[in-house]
Each structure stands twice: as C-alpha cells, then as structure tokens.
C-alpha cells in the first residue's frame, strides 16, 4: 500500500475503471442523483440510441421546479407542470426510483441524499447540480456535472474526470458563541476568494471541523463550489458513522460492520501532502453578511461596504463597482441596520433541522417586522415532519413567518418563486449572483440565525444581540 495518500486520492483510486491518458481517468459512479434538470436527458439518450445502464444506482427527486406553497401539486405552477411530469415519466421508463412531489422522501436533492443514507462515506456520487459537493461532508467523493456528463453517467455508469490538485483548509480554534458553520464558510470564501479553489479538491480539516455536526459539515462542503472548488470533503469519523447508522438506504448488519471497517481507513494519512495548505483560525470569525454579487463579497456583521478604489486589480475594481450599482449600496455603508424586505430560510445550504432550530430560537415569541415577508422552506419532507414534531412550525407561524413545502424555492428563480425587482433579501442560500433570486433581486447571504434576526428587526442585525 502506498503511504501518504489523501482522503481524496484513496477514494479516487478505488473507483478507477481505466486510465485514459495523463491525469485523466474513467471512474465508476456509485450513486447518481437527478432532479428536474435531468429530465431532458432521457429523451436525448434515447435519440442517440443509448439506454440507462444501472437504473438501480440512480435516484431522482423533484426540487428545483416545484412550487413550495402548501397544498402544491404538479399543476400549481406552470413551471412545475413543465418539468415534474417529464422527470417522472423519464424515471418510470428507465426504472429509476423517483421520490415524487409529495412522497415522504421528497426534498432538495442534497438534503435527501445524506438523509436517506443514499450518500455514504467513500462513495463516488455525482449529480447535475454544482452543489453536489455537499455530499463530501460524509467523506464521499461528490461533485456537480453538466448535462452531457449526466447522459454519459446514465449510459455507462462511469464518468471521465481530470484529477484535480488537492487543497487542505485546516480550521483550528473553536467557533465563538452565535457563530454558525455558514459564517465559517462565508468567512473562508471572503478571505481567500471565490476563485481560490479553482482546479482543487478541498478537504476541510482541523479541530473546528471535527467539532461540527454532520449538518454543519454539509453547510460547509455545500459552499466549496463558491470557492471555485468542485469538491469539498470532510474525512469520516464517529460523528459521520453515528449520522449514517440506521438511515433507510444505509447498510445494516454484517454489511454495515464491513463498511465501517472500510470507512475508517479513508482519512488522509498523516504523511499525505497537499498541493496547497490554508490555515484558518475559527475563533476569530464573527457572524458574516454578504454585500455584493459574489459570495466573496462578504464582511463581518460589524463591517462596512468596501471601496472599489481599494481593489487589488482593475478587474476586481470593475466587478465591485458593478456589484455596488446592482445592490444599490455606497462604499463605506454600515451593513448592520440596512433595511431589508424579504427573508428566506432554506436551500441545500441551510434548510436542515439544526438550521431551523437555530432560526426558531431567534424568532420564538417575537414578530416579524411589519414590512418584511419571511419564509421558511424546509429542505425535505423528513425535515418538515421533524420540525413539526418539535413545534417549530408553530413558532414560525406565530411569529408571522410562512411555513412552506420542501423545495429549492427562493434559492433559484426557476420555480416561479422569486424576490421582486429591487427587493433586498437576507437569504440562507449560497449564491448572491445577479438575478439569482429573480431579476433585479438583491441578496445578502447569511446564517439561519442572522436571517431570522433580520426578519424580526426588519434590518440586517447581529443575531448575537437578540
């Protein structure tokens, strides 16, 4: 056995079907997840005369195009009607398990994968969605693919990949009181930049990561792509095993025991070397809020909108100027106290039960500011059931927060749900891109606690002060 391998290398090498050239391999895909965007692939494949090779290894759900209004059906919106039946039909024909609109397992694809035990440590998992890096939180090798690749996976159960460089981001120290995993990842992105991980597979390590719950690790890995990295991973440990044990699709009995032995060997070896090493002191991080149109446009809650004149490059200056114009903010403005119109708590970044608990903890016994529309969109039916069992839905409803059905909702203006032009939304999602939440929408990325605090005060607020 070669010593000094990284977690990434170990999983990659395990999946090698054939080497295709220097640095390019044909890899086996253990799990393939699809959402509505994968619907057209079935017809395209058939047209080319190909069939689905291993339908039992692909799982589908509806999340991107669905309505999240209570009582929603296929035809609640035109958008949903355009996409959901097509995916359902494609899956039925190919023999792929589809978690349908109101099934007990339905939810955002990156929430249900881990939740159902479809995502396991050491697996190679792909999905036609860039936030597939989320699944790396369990120690899987997971990344987002395009639609040509999606067809390739359906037809061959393999994928052609170029081996990336490796980067380790070591987060030492402990997160402070009221500082959430979302703050940690936003802070990392703003510190090293939205392109810093381009060409790399990132492993998050260090005491602050080991201390995170699985859900916190998912929030972190979810946004690896916002660092430019297709892959984000955390080595499996006892927290991982505890999380996976007993999940519906997870192995059990003797197979579980064998799997655990296998998974315990996945962690990067002590002698492993990475192409880049980045140290982060987690104890210095405050709650974060984004101000612009890239996740790297983020500052601490006591921060000011930066001045493009201070930008390092001409290119960066122009991008900052364009961003400021779009979000209608002046350099030097304090973010704390900025009036907002909308709050969205949801998305594959922050729609899990711990996220909803954090938000509920802030809104309990309070009222949403009169001028604010606030939504909570649970990430899955299972999260919704759990939250309702804990009475969180009541906490939100009594505060005047809308409690909705699982889906991507306001994270992406695909499903007919959007933030109106000019409105300012504090959002727990992962992208503040131009038009992401709807044409001319202005997004401020934040943690669930920060989003909940903004809902109550009607302005950007340090959640620690409530």
């Amino acid at each position: 056995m070669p010593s000094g391998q990284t977690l990434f290398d170990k999983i990659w090498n395990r999946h090698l079907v054939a080497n295709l050239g220097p640095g390019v391999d044909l890899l086996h895909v253990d799990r393939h997840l699809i959402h509505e965007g994968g619907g057209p692939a079935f017809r395209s494949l058939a047209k080319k005369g190909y069939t689905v090779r291993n339908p039992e290894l692909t799982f589908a759900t509806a999340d991107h195009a669905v309505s999240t209004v209570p009582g929603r059906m296929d035809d609640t919106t035109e958008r949903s009607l355009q996409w959901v039946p097509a995916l359902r039909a494609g899956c039925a024909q190919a023999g792929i398990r589809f978690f349908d609109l109101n099934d007990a397992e339905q939810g955002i694809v990156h929430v249900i994968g881990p939740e159902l035990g479809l995502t396991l440590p050491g697996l190679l998992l792909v999905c036609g969605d860039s936030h597939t890096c989320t699944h790396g939180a369990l120690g899987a090798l997971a990344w987002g693919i395009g639609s040509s690749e999606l067809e390739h996976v359906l037809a061959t159960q393999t994928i052609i990949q170029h081996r990336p460089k490796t980067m380790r981001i070591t987060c030492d120290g402990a997160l402070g009181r009221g500082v959430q995993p979302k703050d940690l990842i936003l802070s990392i992105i703003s510190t090293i930049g939205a392109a810093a991980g381009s060409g790399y597979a990132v492993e998050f390590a260090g005491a602050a990561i080991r201390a995170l719950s699985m859900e916190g690790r998912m929030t972190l890995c979810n946004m690896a792509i916002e660092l430019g990295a297709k892959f984000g991973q955390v080595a499996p440990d006892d927290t991982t095993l505890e999380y996976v044990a007993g999940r519906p699709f997870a192995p059990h009995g003797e197979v579980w025991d064998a799997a655990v032995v296998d998974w315990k060997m996945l962690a990067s070896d002590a002698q492993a070397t990475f192409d880049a090493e980045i140290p982060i002191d987690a104890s210095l991080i405050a709650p974060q809020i984004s101000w612009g149109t890239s996740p790297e446009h983020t500052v601490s809650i006591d921060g000011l909108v930066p001045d493009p004149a201070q930008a390092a490059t001409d290119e960066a200056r122009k991008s900052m100027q364009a961003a400021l114009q779009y979000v209608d903010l002046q350099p030097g403005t304090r973010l704390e106290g900025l009036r907002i119109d909308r709050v969205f708590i949801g998305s594959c970044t922050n729609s899990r039960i711990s996220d909803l608990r954090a938000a509920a903890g802030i809104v309990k016994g309070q009222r949403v500011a009169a001028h604010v529309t606030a939504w909570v969109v649970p990430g899955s039916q299972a999260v919704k059931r759990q939250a309702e069992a804990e009475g969180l839905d009541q906490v939100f409803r009594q505060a005047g927060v809308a409690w909705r059905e699982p889906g991507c909702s306001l994270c992406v203006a695909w499903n007919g749900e959007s933030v109106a032009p000019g409105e300012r939304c504090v959002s727990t999602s992962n992208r503040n891109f131009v038009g992401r939440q709807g044409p001319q929408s202005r997004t401020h990325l934040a943690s669930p606690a920060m989003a909940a605090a903004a809902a109550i005060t009607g302005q950007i607020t340090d959640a620690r002060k409530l």
Partner: protein
Amino acid sequence: MEKFTTLTGIAAPLMLENVDTDVITPMELMVTYGFGRHVGRIAFAPLRYIKTEHDGPDFILHQPTENPEFVLNQEPFRQARILLAGTNFGCGSSREMAVWAIARMGYRCLIAPSFGQIFFNNCFKNGVLPIVLPRPVVEDFAELARSGGVEAQFTVDLNAGEIVSPAGEKIAFAVEPTRREALLEGLDEIGLTLQRESEIADFQQRDRQERPWVYAVARE
C-alpha cells in the same frame, strides 16, 4: 459534436471577474424561453439588455433594448468568435446551457486567467475551446483587441497549441491531450466509453465483492 481545429478572428474583451452562470444564462429567462432556439439571445441578458417599463416578461423575443455600454454589443466585437474574459469566468452552477448560449452567440474559443471548473468541462463537450492563460497575457490581448478594431485578428490553432496575436506574437497554450483529441475529432464520448463495457463490468463484479453496500440499495 462540432470539431475545433483552428479559428481566426477578432476577440471581444469582457474583462470582468467572477462572471457567473446566472449572468450568462439567467434561470428565469431560460425556463421562460427554453434551452433551444433562443438560448443565444438570453446570453448575458443582465449585462446586455436594458429592460424598459414597457417590456413584458418575454421582452427578449421582441427586439430588446441593448445596453450600448456593454462591450459585446459594440462594433466590431459583435462579429467576434473569440471571447477574452476575466478570472473565474463561468463560475456558479453546472448548467450546460451557459455554454450553449455562448456558443449560440458565435463564440467558439474563450480565453481567461481561470474558469469555473464545471463550466470549463462543459465547454469541451460542446465544441468550445476554453484556454487558460496568465492574467497579464489576457489583459494584453484585451488591450490589442480594444485598440486594433477589425484589424486585430487572433488565430487559435489547437493542433499546434498556439495563439498568434495581432502583434504577430506566438503564445503557446496547453490543453490536456484527451480533451484536445476529442475536440479535434469531434468525438462521441458515450460511444467511446461503451467500447470499454467489459472493463466496466469487470470493475463492478470485483467491487460488488469488496463493497457490497454500494450495490445493495434496493429498499422498497
């Protein structure tokens, strides 16, 4: 897939950082117009058009008002088939439509200091050549493109792995060999991979013994 061998033409300088796939192909517009015929019109919509009060949601289909400040709307760059872009071009989502839209606008070659990784991959699947060059080189190209007008012809030669700039300078670029070959030949990757069916079957057979939990997923 359309082959790519050499390309000569002017280059449009779109030197902004982090131009993401939501700017290249806004989801709202894509799902309204579909990914087919109109996808080229959608490209860069937030930068490219000015939406007036009279415009309905389908304004892009009805001669939308162009933003004259946007470089891709200006002559001679409307004729460009090469796009010079800033750092992290195409970051964001995995949507392959972003590449389709750019290809539909007529661009076959993109040159930037770095690209969003999924977007980069998607380019190769659609006969579009993305080239990574150091930022100062791309900035030089942008300057040559701006000052040279229609005279500023670039030649991109994939076979030789070389760009000839309007100044006559030759700049080498690297493309990973399998991708290069796929582009030069316009290969069907699925067909090629299926020629390895026995290797895939062997892998699975062996792997089923070693990692049974991967395959035992048929819970009802």
